[in-house]
């Protein structure tokens, strides 16, 4: 497969995954707003999210003070910065367009239709329709993933699509956790409130029922974190993402990708054989930070090994 083709497939799926995770993140805030919380706690929650998305500076430059409505618009609709949901959907479509001959017509038409429909959404939409927008984003991502798995050849085209999806998902799941851990309202001694706030996170990630089934116990920050990091049977879980990364990177291995594969394997082994308590011995936020650095390193190595290979000419 052409390196450029692999690059477009990888970014196509990363952007789509990013769009849906952004939708989940602001969905969590919409749900939190329904809980009885002090207004400053709501603002601090948004701020924590924007920090963990790396969007807080861009936001402040554009809007100054935080307010939930503006923050929602910024993450969802702002066409002026590349991190918004609408811009992610556009980037996914532009990458798909560049490889429309490699993906199936069904995939291309779905991504194209998603983009065309996204043009009808903007910050002028009524408050009541905003939840529908987030649902729509999730639904379009489900649809695209279904079509991908239902029509795309099981070869490099699927492997690189998966590498993009799971790298992005691992990154996003840890950011979701991070923003909850950073939210000062999320770490107090208010057990009841805290439980419902972490339950909101689980619902936004469509993982609430799974938590009940797996733990049959009350919702606590550590249990939620453990589930989202360590379970290899939970599709949103980091362990699962690393399983997929390892498998797909093994399938596309080339002469120079040995070191990258070794690093994924090492990272995977921590989750596969490690103990949660030991991984997080220095605190969950510290661990999440370190993990994200290692994911970032992997992303760069994957680009060097496969997507923009140097030294071929």
């Amino acid at each position, binding site marked *: *497969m052409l390196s450029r083709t692999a690059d477009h497939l990888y970014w196509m799926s990363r952007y789509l995954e990013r769009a849906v995770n952004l939708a989940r993140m602001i969905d969590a805030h919409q749900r939190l707003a329904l809980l009885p919380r002090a207004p400053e706690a709501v603002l601090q929650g948004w701020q924590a999210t924007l920090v963990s998305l790396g969007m807080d500076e861009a936001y402040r430059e554009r809007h100054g003070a935080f307010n939930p409505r503006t923050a929602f618009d910024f993450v969802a609709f702002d066409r002026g910065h590349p991190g918004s949901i609408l811009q992610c959907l556009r980037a996914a479509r532009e990458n798909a367009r560049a490889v429309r001959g490699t993906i199936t017509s069904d995939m*291309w038409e779905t991504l*194209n239709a998603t983009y065309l429909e996204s043009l009808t959404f903007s910050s002028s939409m009524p408050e009541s329709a905003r939840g529908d927008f987030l649902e729509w984003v999730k639904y379009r991502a489900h649809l695209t993933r279904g079509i991908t798995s239902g029509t795309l050849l099981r070869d490099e085209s699927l492997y*690189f699509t998966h590498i993009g999806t799971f790298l992005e998902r691992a990154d996003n799941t840890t950011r979701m956790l991070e923003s909850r851990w950073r939210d000062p309202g999320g770490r107090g001694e208010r057990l009841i409130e805290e439980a419902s706030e972490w339950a909101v996170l689980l619902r936004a990630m469509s993982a609430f029922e799974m938590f009940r089934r797996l733990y049959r116990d009350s919702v606590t920050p550590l249990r939620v974190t453990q589930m989202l990091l360590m379970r290899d049977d939970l599709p949103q879980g980091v362990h699962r993402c690393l399983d997929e990364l390892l498998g797909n990177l093994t399938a596309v291995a080339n002469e120079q990708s040995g070191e990258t594969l070794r690093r994924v394997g090492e990272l995977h082994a921590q989750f596969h054989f490690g103990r949660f308590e030991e991984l997080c011995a220095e605190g969950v936020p510290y661990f999440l930070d370190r993990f994200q650095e290692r994911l970032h390193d992997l992303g760069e190595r994957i680009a060097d090994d496969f997507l923009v*290979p140097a030294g*071929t000419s």
Partner: protein
Amino acid sequence: MDTRARAYDEMLDGSGTPRSHCRQYYGWLREQPGEHLARKRAEADALFHRVGITFAVHGENEGTERLIPFDIVPRILPGAEWTRLEQGLKQRVRALNAFIADIYHEQRILAAGRIPPEQILCNPQYRPEMQGVNLPGGIYAHISGIDVVRDDAGRFCVLEDNLRVPSGVSYMLENRKMMMRLFPELFARDSVLPVEHYPDVLHQNLQSVAPAGVTDPTVVLLTPGAYNSAYFEHAFLAQQMGIELVEGQDLFVRDARLYMRTTQGAERVDVVYRRLDDDFLDPLSFRPDSTLGVPGLLTAYRAGHVTIANAIGTGIADDKSVYPFVPEMVRFYLEEEPLLDNVPTWVLRRAEDRAYVLAHLKELVVKEVHGAGGYGMLIGPAASSAQLEEFRARINACPERYIAQPTIALSTSPTLVAAGLAPRHIDLRPFVLSGREVTVVPGGLTRVALREGSLVVNSSQGGGTKDTWVLGAPPGEAAS
């Protein structure tokens, strides 16, 4: 001059009665309520948008994507008439290929005095780099788009040959798919000859012209990229043929051999179906500022390690100043009489032609020799006196840059416009493929000038397209 009054209508004769081969279809068309047709057309638009069959327009904002308007009324050709046209097209393309091969080798036609040598050798389309280069099968124009029009007597003639990077074939294929989706019942009534095997024939042809000794050739399609106006077609054809769609940055030359950069390292490329003009192919040999091409490609090509389709230098045969000599090429190389005529053409570098044209400017069409896409063209009957004077001055300044032709009343076809069905002028671009043999899939791309009275069918100038039907034996009466 009202061109519609004397134009030949493809569907109806002078008395408004459907021609015999259109009777089935026309009967059906007349039964359809207007709103039904309008709904079908809206459905077609929505589908084309979703599939992304769009093109970018020169001079508009980057990223603006527009549909080429699709007309749901097909253009229908009877089988026997197509067969005659097909023979004429094949003959013409054989002669054109023979001409290009001759020009880049012995130049017999120049020695024989049939074409003035300076007209070829001083032409910017002549590529001295190609002199003496031998190509597999001696084929230069692997894909030719020959634009034919029907005059007021109903006779087909060739308006121009496109031998560099002819485009439009994806619309031929997508229009058929669309018609079958919108009106499946029509294909049960009339026996319409299929076109969907075009990509297979093209792929086989491209493989057949691989460099000698290559047994399982790797063919790629070279595109200028996703922002080119014909990008949809490039992606579509690559997908249909199952070959890689590459950009210049994906390719490199090492030791006079061409490779592509893949996730598994470098991979040899044997045949390049390029959708990029000569000038951009190799910055080391042609335009040094081109970032779209591949440095060193010409070296690999001249060494015979890679085939480029169409070949470099085919522009020498489709230049408008060379066009008047094509019938002569048929006689010279094939020793046959041309089955397809040219449109009568005045060459303005000749003093007597120029005098005539300047005296009759208001009746004629004047074209720039190197123009394309309907740009740089004067349509006398439709021009203002200021435009006429401007062209008169331009012709006097550089006569060799222009040719002139009578204003042909292009044939018309009923077309669905805002007010209902109305006649609009059309042309036809069949695609002729040259490999081991010369083939044409039945039909081609019919372009239609949607503005009332307009004779310009180019998509960049408000033209649309139609499905083109060549009828075979009626269903149930298949030839035994």
